């Protein structure tokens, strides 16, 4: 595998917890701006993989290279969104979003607030700047979380089942929002989800994680925007689900 080139290169990553081998010599190359969905059975190591990408954990062996640079620890170019919004309850909505600008030390507090308010507008929460997080609905909280993640225009956005706790309608709205922001900012995205149709409707590439490695790497060339009831989408969905169910 080539060492250089822009984009993200996962080289021979293994991760073990004690005697449990979660990831085993995983190899992956991703172009800058690609949207990757990751599916797989519960416990197959999806979150572990994202945590390695995020620098929250270290691989047992192997390395990750982002734009020719070996990644080590936390990186301001990488943002993560979790299933829980992880907003700070004691900060207002706009202050929470401003946390996303923390790495940019040259900004004045007024600049931060201004940019955060603009970002809130983009995720459809104009006018809610000064509210406490606890008054927001689950979907609105995830919008704030998304605004916080994207306000610094990171190169890589990692999404660990961010819509898992939301109802079906809110999820559809969030798909649209994530898609629009991805088009605009052109970050590379990794979306872990247990919803195969969600994975298909958003991604350029769908990865199936199994036995510590990529068991399926499926390019999705369907035209965007994709409809849930599109025949091709549902065919692909069926294929993937059949493939997941084959083992075990």
């Amino acid at each position, binding site marked *: 595998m080539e060492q250089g080139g822009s984009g993200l290169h996962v080289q021979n990553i293994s991760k073990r917890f004690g005697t449990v081998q979660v990831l085993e010599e995983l190899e992956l190359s991703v172009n800058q701006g690609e949207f990757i969905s990751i599916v797989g059975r519960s416990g197959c190591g999806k979150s572990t993989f994202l945590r390695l990408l*995020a620098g*929250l954990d270290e691989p047992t062996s192997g390395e990750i290279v982002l734009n020719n640079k070996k990644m080590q620890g936390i990186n301001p170019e990488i943002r*993560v969104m979790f299933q829980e919004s*992880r907003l*700070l*309850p*004691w900060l207002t909505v706009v202050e929470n979003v401003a946390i996303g600008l*923390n*790495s940019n030390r040259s900004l004045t507090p007024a600049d931060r607030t201004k940019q955060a308010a603009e970002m809130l507008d983009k995720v459809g929460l104009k006018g809610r700047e000064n509210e406490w997080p*606890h008054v927001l609905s689950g979907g609105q909280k995830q919008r704030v979380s998304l605004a916080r993640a994207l306000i610094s225009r990171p190169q890589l956005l990692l999404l660990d089942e961010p819509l898992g706790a939301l109802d079906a309608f809110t999820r559809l709205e969030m798909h649209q929002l994530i898609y629009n922001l991805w088009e605009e900012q052109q970050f590379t995205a990794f979306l872990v989800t247990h919803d195969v149709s969600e994975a298909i409707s958003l991604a350029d590439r769908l990865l199936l994680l199994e036995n510590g490695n990529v068991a399926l790497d499926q390019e999705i060339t369907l035209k965007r925007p994709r409809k849930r009831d599109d025949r091709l989408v549902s065919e692909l969905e069926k294929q993937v689900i059949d493939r997941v169910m084959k083992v075990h």
Partner: protein
Amino acid sequence: MKLKNNRLDGILPWVLPVALIIFWQLASTNEWITSRLFPAPTVIVQTGYELLVSGILLHHLGISTYRAIVGLMIGGGLGFILGLLNGLSPLASKLLDSTIQMIRNVPHLALIPLIIIWLGIGETAKLFLVSLGVFFPIYVNTYHGIRTVDRGLIEMGKVYGLNSWELFKKIILPGALPSIFVGLRYALGLMWLTLIVAETIASDSGIGYMAMNAREFMQTDVIILSITIYALLGKLADVLAKIIEEITLKWHPSYAKKK
């Protein structure tokens, strides 16, 4: 209709106490009960006024308040600092926590005889007892508060590049605050309790001493006055703590303004 109900709701809780006081007044002035043992409320108010004018009341009140505040600062401050230290550092916690928990099992008031021998009945003894009394609730709740801050929030802070100081200031401390306030309010109760006992047993000034001294001369009015003042001080401290809590925790769902 609604308004009338509201007014009634405001009045109802006061009915019983007011009735009791009126009854007490009548019983005492008509000598249904011995007024020497149960002086009438008006007599107590009169006594309170005389003590206030003569400056005696303020003298004792000042000293008691001083002891309460200094004791709270010392004991509470130490409890807070140790709670932070042990909450943040697993090493410190391993080293110190079990010892502190062991000492906590000794009722601090049981130490009074020992403390009188060691420190006499001077200021130090009283400050020591109050400090000891408030130390544990603040320590325990600070420690617990820090340890139970949502790990997910701390991890989020790390992803966003917060350094250790920012993590502490923006995430750990605010997260621990509700628990710390529980400790503070508990400590305030113990503060007055300890002070009453300490001033009653080993003192030559303060509200507790005033009551104890009055006993020698059978001045039941002064004794009841002292008890009332303690109750008021306790209430005042609690109200103050509650106000600070409401301002500091205004983000908290349980303090959200109900409209």
